[in-house]
């Protein structure tokens, strides 16, 4: 009887799925949760921008040019009398959209190509990988600039230009994952039981390689956001009047000595967003792959 009562006092660890377990680990990581909170708050502010600020991103008040921060304009106005705070909020829409939609394109191209390459192996794999090698030989950002010149300056074309270059990493990652999973016992078991190629790929191989893919996507989002900001900063990003933090930085840069805050606000916003994504990505990596933790 004593044994039974003792066993009852030992807390039984509740059963968690792989994802549930990862989520618990992620929740314990304050930096990652802070990053996630920052991203969510920024996204909400960007979505509900019209409710937060009375101004729009293109509205010019030519009688209020280059004003310093005040109650009326919390971050001042730019050289065309546009409210900087409003432009920052609407610019967050651009940045976040770039981050999300480029990764959507990247996944649409990279996942299937990587999966086919890894699963088929042999000659197919060889051809695909040689093509990937050529893509790797290109300096990423210069290829994006070239594609951007071909496709034009609409925001959707920017997504496409970045996506068409960035899918290579995911394809390589998925290929490696699938190749290592392919020889595992549970895949052989599925094969023995009559599973066909498609079924095994979609049911066993892809779900099991999802962890690293999610981590990689989280790290690629800020890179895409940075790329768009950099392009807009040089003047070959999204076309005005679409607000972009990179373009705002460019506007502010010309007035660095007289109106430094015009430059400071978008620069800090961009830095914080990058940092938030890095914290979240680090947290996800630790949560999804406990072996990597030190």
């Amino acid at each position: 009887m004593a044994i039974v009562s003792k066993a009852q006092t030992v807390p039984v660890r509740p059963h968690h799925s792989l994802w549930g377990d990862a989520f618990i680990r992620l929740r314990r990581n304050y930096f990652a949760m802070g990053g996630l909170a920052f991203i969510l708050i920024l996204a909400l502010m960007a979505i509900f921008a019209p409710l937060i600020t009375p101004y729009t991103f293109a509205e010019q008040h030519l009688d209020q040019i280059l004003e310093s921060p005040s109650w009326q304009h919390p971050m001042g106005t730019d050289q065309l009398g546009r409210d900087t705070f409003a432009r920052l909020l609407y610019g967050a829409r651009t940045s976040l959209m770039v981050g999300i939609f480029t990764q959507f394109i990247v996944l649409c191209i990279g996942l299937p190509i990587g999966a086919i390459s890894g699963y088929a192996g042999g000659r197919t794999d060889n051809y695909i990988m040689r093509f990937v090698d050529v893509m790797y030989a290109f300096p990423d950002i210069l290829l994006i600039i070239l594609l951007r010149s071909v496709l034009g300056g609409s925001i959707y074309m920017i997504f496409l230009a970045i996506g068409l270059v960035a899918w290579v990493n995911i394809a390589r990652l998925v290929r490696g994952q699938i190749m290592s999973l392919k020889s595992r016992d549970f895949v052989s078991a599925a094969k023995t039981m009559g599973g066909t190629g498609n079924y095994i790929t979609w049911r066993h191989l892809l779900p099991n390689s999802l962890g690293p893919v999610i981590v990689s996507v989280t790290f690629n989002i800020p890179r895409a956001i940075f790329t768009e900001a950099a392009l807009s900063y040089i003047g070959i990003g999204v076309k005005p009047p679409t607000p972009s933090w990179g373009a705002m930085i460019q506007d502010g840069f010309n007035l660095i000595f007289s109106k430094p805050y015009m430059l400071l606000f978008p620069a800090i916003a961009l830095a914080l967003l990058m940092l938030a994504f890095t914290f979240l990505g680090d947290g996800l990596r630790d949560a999804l792959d406990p072996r990597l933790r030190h």
Partner: protein
Amino acid sequence: MLRFIVRRTLWLFLVLFVVLLITFVLMHLVPGGPWDREKALAPKVVEALNKRYGLDKPLWEQFVNYIWGVLHGDLGVSYSYSDRTITSILAHGIPKTATLGILAFIFALIVGVPSGVAAALKQNSAIDYSSVLFATIFASVPGFVLGILLMMIFSVVLHWLPTTGWGTFQQLLMPVFCLAALPAAQFARITRASTLEVIRQDYVRTARSKGLPESTIRVRHIFRNSLIPVITVAGPELANLITGSFIIENLFAIPGVGRLFVQGIFARDYTLIMGGILFYAIVIAILNLLVDILYAAIDPRIRYE
């Protein structure tokens, strides 16, 4: 090993050819041409210019001529800088880009690797936490944002450094730091992770139980082995530094290859764009090849056959 190098070099030529082909096709898909001006040129003038630069020939012939020229070391004549060859333009830009890249690379190694080792040897100490924190910040804040913040502090507020330009030591400080921040952070992160792994290896414990002095263990057993992953990323990082510097070059108004390339895109200067891409692709390819060779030289477990 020699066979491996020869095969990789041949492959390299093929890759460069394909890179040039893709660039050529993309470039000619861009609407407009090199003679577009605010005020349109007379059709006769455009015709004469096209004839002079061989742009009236069919595209495939232009490409064949270009490749023939490249094989003879002739990258063509620029359309936007009248009568200057691309080779001479690049010859002006490359030293600046290379100086920036190599200085930043050395700086990143000197700062990143020791701080990574120090963090790992004193795991969970204040040194460790501050090193990890700085590495995370510098790994995520983009170089040009860092550059702007530095400019605001050191040029606008303190008036210590000039904002832009090229030539003096003071003008080098900020761009090199901005370029070096990201690779330094990555070196620190990787060195820390690999050192932590090596510390727990059996041969380190064996060395300790033999009674070797701690400094010998660190230099001979820990440090040398923890550097292997660093070398894998060092090559791509140097390539990134050299190709990625174009935005820093634009920010600090440094007339390097990156700035030339961006001007070439704006001016539809076909030969300048091709020359820029070729330069970058060669740098990337050679550095990757070097890393592979170096890797085999350092780690006896790796053999290429």
